């Protein structure tokens, strides 16, 4: 089985040395092989996929405007028109939950991608540089890591208001240092490998070594890091909204919904429970993916090695 998988990868890469379509197909092949091997990864990615699909289709399946108030139907239980009931202003909870997912996913995706992207590149570069640049960057990283993330975010949001990009950038500043540190550690083990020495002996430029030789080989660490950071960031953003520093009312947001509907928990419990369940499933999905990825990528490598 392993042999056929790797052969398929090889065949996919046949498209040409370094050809981008070939490489994407190669990644897809190895992803399907990872999926078949790990239940955690399948469930995790499944949960994330459900969330993404629901978020994308939210306007069409929700049936109600998430911010439209209707005081005649405030705090109903679940009814045929409002499946999950309404909140104190008569807004449809299902619609708010679904639309809240759009916001959560968008911010998480942007913040995680930027934070992990910056952290990865910086981690590889500092690992390879191993000179004053490395020292300076890592001391800054240490300083940033020493600041409690929620405090830093509160300050930023208070000063700059809570627009989407403010939150995204603030989260980036908070999480990029941690990613830098992790990736730097992984990259340092890669640097001792002979193929990096070979590239140095050829006289390749440092950036070319970082992007051709080091970066592709830390991608597994980066993927796991991505899934893990994403789950933390989802929680962090919801926490911010819950505390009243994130999304402004009446934006449909999970943290904000929990905060708004928490007082009505005994009357209309679904108002707080629905966003909690949504948030929990997304975080579980991300965590399971991180777990499954780290396992299957590790095993994947060992198996490929065993083929030889």
């Amino acid at each position: 089985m392993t042999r056929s998988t790797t052969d398929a990868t090889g065949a996919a890469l046949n498209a040409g040395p370094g050809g981008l379509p070939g490489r994407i197909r190669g990644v897809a092949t190895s992803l399907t092989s990872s999926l078949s091997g790990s239940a955690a990864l399948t469930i995790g990615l499944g949960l994330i996929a459900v969330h993404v699909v629901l978020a994308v289709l939210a306007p069409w399946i929700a049936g109600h405007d998430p911010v439209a108030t209707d005081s005649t139907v405030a705090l109903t239980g679940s009814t045929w028109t409002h499946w999950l009931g309404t909140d104190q202003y008569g807004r449809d909870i299902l619609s708010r939950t679904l639309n809240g997912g759009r916001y959560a996913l968008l911010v998480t995706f942007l913040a995680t991608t930027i934070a992990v992207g910056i952290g990865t590149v910086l981690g590889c570069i500092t690992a390879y540089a191993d000179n004053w640049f490395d020292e300076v960057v890592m001391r800054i990283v240490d300083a940033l890591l020493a600041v409690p993330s929620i405090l830093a975010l509160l300050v930023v949001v208070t000063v700059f208001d809570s627009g989407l990009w403010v939150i995204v950038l603030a989260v980036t500043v908070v999480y990029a240092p941690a990613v830098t540190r992790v990736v730097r550690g992984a990259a340092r083990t890669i640097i001792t490998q002979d193929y990096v020495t070979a590239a140095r002996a050829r006289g390749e430029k440092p950036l070319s070594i970082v992007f051709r030789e080091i970066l592709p080989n830390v991608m597994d660490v980066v993927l796991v890091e991505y899934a893990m950071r994403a789950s933390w960031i989802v929680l962090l953003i919801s926490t911010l909204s819950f505390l009243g520093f994130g999304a402004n009312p009446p934006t449909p947001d999970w943290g904000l919904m929990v905060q708004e509907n928490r007082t009505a928990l005994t009357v209309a419990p679904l108002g707080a429970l629905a966003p909690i369940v949504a948030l929990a499933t997304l975080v579980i999905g991300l965590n399971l993916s991180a777990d499954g990825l780290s396992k299957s990528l590790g095993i994947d490598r060992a198996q490929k090695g065993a083929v030889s």
Partner: protein
Amino acid sequence: MSSAPVSTSSPVDAPPDTVVHVDDLSISYAAGRRDVPVVRGVSFSIRPGRALGLVGESGSGKSTVARTLLAHLRRGSRIVGGRVTVAGSDVFALGDRERRALRGGTAALVAQNAGQALTPSMRVGRQLREALESHGLPGGHERVLELVRHVRLPDPETIVERYPHQLSGGQQQRIAIAMAIAARPRLLVLDEPTTALDVVTQAAVLELVRDLSVELEMAILLVSHDLGVVSAMADEIAVMRDGVIVEHRQTAELFADPQHEYTRELLASAPRTSATGLSAERGGGRASAPPPPLVTAADLVVRYARSLPPAVDAVSFAIGAQETLAVVGESGSGKSTLATAMAGLIPAESGTFTFRGDDGIEGDLTRPVARRSLDLRRSVQLVFQNADTSLNPRRTVGAAIARPLRLFTGSTSPDRVAELLEEVGLTPDFASRLPAQLSGGQRQRVGIARALAAGPELIIADEITTALDVRVQAGVLDLLTDLRDEKGLGCLFISHDLAVVRGVADRVAVMTGGRFVEIGSTEDVFSGPNHPYTRQLLDATLDPGTTVLRGVDDTTRTWRDADGWDDLGDGHRIRRWESA
């Protein structure tokens, strides 16, 4: 095939005088849903005080068989048929408690890498005491010291106070042996016990094991890929291939008259220090018309840090075009540092080091690679020891070769990549494979193709065959020799193995402690007279078929450096020395 001296009868009771009796053993390994047989119908037995050598290439199943004697099976494998009897009991029928008593008690294992077999955070003495006490033996200080003396380590009192990392590889392996014999086992299983050691240390450790087996009446199973080691140690040899013993005979008989085709092939590909032929005639032809040197080094000093002693100390040599200079020495002798300095990965501290190519490319090799010209970088190419780590696992073979092509020649085409692959004995379809899909030998060929892609005049080969099986090694060495002749490449060939060097080198330099002690044509160095260090290396090298171990002392140095060199003519020079 005059095979197995053990008959397939005697199914239940092992012959009374044998310690080990393996009867028709078959093991298979579950890969996905398939069962892959890894060992098929293996039978042998070993009597006390006798040694059986199990020889084969990696993947032949020899280690799997050896580990069954300790009732150990790799996860996922299972016994399909047959039985393994050690000291009268079927090891796979034992209960947990009895199995623990067997391991380390009746049968002990010495693994390849002693550094990993010892606990790094525990003093050696305490580990030995544990080995004793875990088998219910008194673990007094005297008893521990006695064990250390038994494995001939000098100054036992200080040795037992040390941590494993404070010991040399040879000392670690001796401690591992001491732990193994602590409970007076009746069987000692040695799995590639000396592969990680220098030749001199190897010879001394093997001699120790040999003596211990006689003294303690132990049966020995020696697993090795090295025919020289096995022939010096074992009374009988079993040759394994693909899980089957293809030939099993007395050692002398096997070497005198190998029956199976595979055995003959193995013997033919094993390098020997006593070999003649190829390099002799080449050397002679060359001496008449010496080509101008490609690389000249004079008083070269390389140092890793100012506070450390130089790793390469005042070394002078020259490599001519189309000439292979081999540098031989034990680990830590500075030979790899020399290669690294030549590749420009560490700058030389002082001395001159110049490159003068055929087509007018000149350069200063003391400079780091970043300050060398493109032409100079192109002309000097490096092939690595470990082909597993020298290729980027995420890039195809084609991409690995195309990269230097683009960098040095400015253009790359699939045709040129295919051409290079064919030059190193591979087929063009390898271009689309990933390194993980290649065998060790194939990877090393790709490494050579990558070096050739640049169009070099000089190749630095740093222990390039150390990780390879003998037959594969022979192939790679042949390739290197052919390329040198066809393309007129100069080559700096670094190796710890004199036998390998004999087949490929025109000239040999022997290095120890950062200095050359002898340099000369291959013939001269192998025929002597020699520097005492060279002599020691030559004595310690085990040719396949040697059945005696020449007593080699790896602990004391019998000479010290004196000033100046003795010139024996024909470029054969020996550093002066005095007895110490």
